[in-house]
């Protein structure tokens, strides 16, 4: 099976490549980069006028399976992924049951194979049932296919538990991923604490709720010598803490979502839960700090925190409506909207090279011999219509907005799984 991606500008920061090249993939691997390659019997993807990059990786998505398949399934979530230009996703363990045993992780991977679209890399739980008390079986989870560990959605309240988890798992290369919100400081908050929450009479969560857990987790990372990744950073102080930890030699990386880069906590006047999310949308000085931190290199990764829910669930009262919204199908455009001045090579690093490196997975490069995962994208404006999403989650604050960039084609292991607006099943690779 051969696939030729022809006529594009190949942008591969992993090898410092930015040139017009054709990319030939054979039986799942990149075999040739060159000009005017002969197509022969290859399936041809016309990338004229577009950028050809190593496949994008969203290292923070919620696929909801098992247990909440009315919100999303592995099949619909990976269809959304490839339609958004992602060749791989890391799925968070807050399923029902949680991803805290090898059996469940294996089942997720089996279903991902059956779906045959994006690669799916499970993130195992840090504690059993994400309850923050007993340690999850890290070595068994790693053997089953987990690429990182996290209790995402919450944090172990007990620092002793987290410290022991980090020490026990220290020799595994798998990063711990922290969702940083102190549950006591957060309380029953539905939005950011600030002038808007005070005016609206809504309970707010202060940036402090994030900052204290970032500080705690970075100190635990340092003491345990564990590689750590801070999920969806949302405050200026968190960024300062991450810089400080790096100056002490802590191995820490971090990610930012599109919504924290674009929106503010000023969208609750209608008391709808459309922008209710954890951590909450913040005030302007935090958003500006996040944008600056992408540009100065403090932030390593773009990750969407794709969190699909039913429209009826999000239409409930603010106090009971679930947190989050979908992200996979708007990410490429939304990040370009947030940061028009970001060099495209850096854009590719944040969406591909860095997340692949942090997770230790194939991809993040188009070097000869590497896996044939490719994203073709271009600066073409389009208008978001959430009703057309492949994801079951039709809720996004980006709905109706015009975004300046989009994915045109997605190739996984040499198979064209998304092109011309259509999602296609992966082809079999002959043995």
């Amino acid at each position, binding site marked *: 099976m051969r696939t030729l991606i022809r006529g594009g500008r190949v942008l591969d920061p992993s090898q410092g490549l930015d040139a017009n090249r054709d990319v030939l993939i054979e039986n799942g691997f990149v075999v040739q980069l060159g000009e005017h390659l002969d197509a022969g019997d290859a399936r041809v993807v016309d990338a004229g006028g577009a950028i050809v990059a190593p496949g994008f990786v969203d290292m923070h998505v919620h696929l909801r399976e098992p247990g909440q398949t009315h919100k999303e399934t592995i099949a619909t979530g990976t269809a959304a992924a490839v339609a958004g230009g992602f060749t791989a996703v890391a799925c968070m363990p807050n399923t029902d049951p949680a991803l805290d045993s090898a059996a469940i992780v294996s089942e997720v991977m089996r279903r991902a194979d059956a779906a045959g679209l994006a690669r799916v890399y499970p993130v195992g739980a840090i504690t059993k049932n994400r309850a923050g008390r007993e340690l999850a079986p890290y070595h068994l989870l790693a053997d089953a296919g987990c690429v990182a560990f996290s209790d995402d959605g919450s944090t172990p309240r007990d620092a002793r538990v987290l410290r022991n988890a980090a020490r026990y798992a220290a020799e595994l290369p798998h990063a711990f991923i922290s969702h940083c919100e102190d549950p006591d400081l957060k309380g029953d908050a539905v939005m950011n604490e*600030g002038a808007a929450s005070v005016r609206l*009479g809504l309970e707010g969560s202060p940036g402090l709720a994030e900052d204290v857990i970032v500080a705690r987790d970075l100190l635990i990372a340092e003491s345990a010598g564990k590689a750590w990744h801070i999920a969806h950073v949302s405050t200026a102080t968190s960024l300062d803490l991450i810089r400080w930890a790096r100056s002490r030699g802590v191995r820490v990386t971090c990610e930012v979502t599109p919504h924290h880069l674009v929106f503010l906590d000023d969208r609750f006047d*209608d008391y709808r839960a459309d922008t209710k999310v954890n951590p909450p949308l913040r005030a302007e000085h935090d958003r500006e700090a996040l944008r600056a931190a992408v540009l100065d290199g403090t932030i390593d990764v773009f990750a969407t925190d794709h969190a699909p829910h039913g429209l009826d669930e999000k*239409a409930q009262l*603010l106090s*009971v409506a679930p947190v989050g919204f979908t992200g996979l199908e708007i990410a490429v455009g939304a990040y370009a909207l947030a940061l028009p001045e970001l060099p495209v090579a850096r854009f590719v690093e944040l969406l591909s090279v860095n997340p692949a490196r942090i997770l230790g997975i194939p991809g993040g490069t188009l070097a000869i011999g590497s896996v044939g995962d490719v994203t073709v994208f271009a600066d073409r404006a389009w208008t978001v219509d959430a009703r057309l999403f492949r994801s079951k989650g039709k809720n996004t604050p980006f709905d109706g907005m015009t975004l300046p960039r989009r994915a045109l084609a997605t190739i996984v292991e040499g198979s064209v799984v998304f092109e011309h607006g259509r999602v296609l099943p992966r082809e079999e690779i002959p043995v």
Partner: protein
Amino acid sequence: MPPRSLLDVDDLTPEELVGVLDRAVAFRDVLPPRDLLAGVPVLNLFFEASTRTATSFTLAEQRVGADVISFAPGASSLGKGETIADTALTLRGIGVRVIVVRHPESGFARRLADAFDGHVVNAGDGTHAHPTQALLDLMTLRNEFGRFAGLKIAIVGDILHSRVARSNIVGMRALGIDVTLVGPATLLPDAFAAPGLRIERSLDDVLPHVDAVMMLRIQRERIAGGLLPSLEDYTQRYQLNRARLRALRHDAVILHPGPYNRGVELTDDVLDDPRSRYVAQVHNGVFVRMAVLDLLVNGAPVVA
């Protein structure tokens, strides 16, 4: 065009607000004929217990001739958004034209109004707004001072959890009243600070300089919630009592949205003090609510 619903004071322009107060004063002077809302079905939908507000609304509705229906469902029913829309459709189908609603969650009145093809009067939503209470407070103040601009008012106590304070802040700022908020930082976060809105931590510093002081109720659950150490510690600094009454000007007035906790935010001396206007406030409430219903359903008054 008058607003379709009254969810907070700022649904009214300052002119409409003064118009409502004028109308309320006129109703207080001479009760109107009982046909202003003749045959209009008005539903009192109280998800949260209320004695004074529910009674006041009911009397106001009867005095304008509405067909009054009252229903007090539990707070947990109608919790879901889909059900808000369904309920709104159903009630409109039955023929309800006005819903007076109280709910423990901030924003409930707004969510209901967005789904209901009729008028909604917010009788209190969570810690957000209680516009008819603010209107009756403003009516009481105007009755006392004959003006709003330049008045100095202190609102004291648990501002964070007070829908009365929020609605008064909105109304008073729109009318040019100089507002000072007084309380400890746990009940009055710095985030309240805004142009024309001062925050003070000492009641003693503020009392001698105000035309009116509004004392908010302090609930014991703030102690269990870790926001106050004890009522004794709070009262030492923020209670209006005999000693502090001496610091209050002779021509100043004392407001309280009720129900008050004797011995907590104020003492018996305050209720007996000739400057206390609690009874005038609740008396004015009925006429303000009649005026609001009349405005929403019938529109601007015919100028005589």
